[in-house]
């Protein structure tokens, strides 16, 4: 089946991103297609490359980046949610006059339409949050 996964919370504070990651990984391993992973609300904070988690804990951000690379995943960060919370790529930095970017490898920033498109194009949507 074709799946869209929605992640509503950031890394570490809630388990939502962990659960979404393991679900996505398991779906891929079973041969399903992940149409898109959409990061909304504080979920956009999964897409910063500036984290340095303790060495004895998992690296939530890198794990998503690596899964994306391995499976050519489409990891989309909602632009409106990202602007409220400070997740920035080159385009956003230029548009909003920011002097730095923090987006991590494998993520891209786009509009909420991408979530609706995911729902329309996929067989199932699974939401992970608080």
């Amino acid at each position: 089946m074709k799946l869209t996964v929605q992640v509503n919370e950031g890394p570490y504070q809630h388990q939502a991103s962990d659960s979404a990651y393991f679900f996505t990984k398991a779906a891929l391993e079973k041969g399903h297609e992940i149409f898109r992973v959409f990061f909304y609300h504080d979920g956009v904070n999964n897409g910063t490359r500036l984290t340095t988690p303790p060495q004895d804990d998992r690296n939530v951000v890198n794990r998503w980046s690596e899964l994306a690379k391995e499976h050519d995943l489409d990891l989309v960060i909602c632009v409106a949610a990202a602007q409220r919370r400070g997740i920035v790529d080159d385009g956003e930095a230029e548009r909003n006059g920011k002097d730095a970017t923090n987006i991590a490898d494998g993520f891209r920033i786009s509009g909420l339409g991408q979530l609706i498109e995911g729902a329309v194009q996929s067989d199932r949507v699974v939401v992970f949050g608080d």
Partner: protein
Amino acid sequence: MSLLHIVNKSPYEKNSLNTATGYCKDGDTLLLIEDGVYAAMKGGSASVNLEGLDVAVMGSDLAARGIAEDKLIDGISVVDYAGFVDLVEAKDSTQSWL
């Protein structure tokens, strides 16, 4: 049409399980993940909410919280993430009671 209801909150902390079980219809499955797994523990006052429902629970979340399978109420199936994916596929739609 049958639904997969997902509950990730402790029934002692939030009202999610209580509402979710009110929405479970015949043929639906209730999946407990994260702190939601506490609902399935024997002897807890929340476990009565699960009576008569088809309930699955995430094994890795049980283990993390130190809940041995013999502490679960009867009739619960323990799944892994592959089982979670199968449940999503088996049902027509999913509803996450956050």
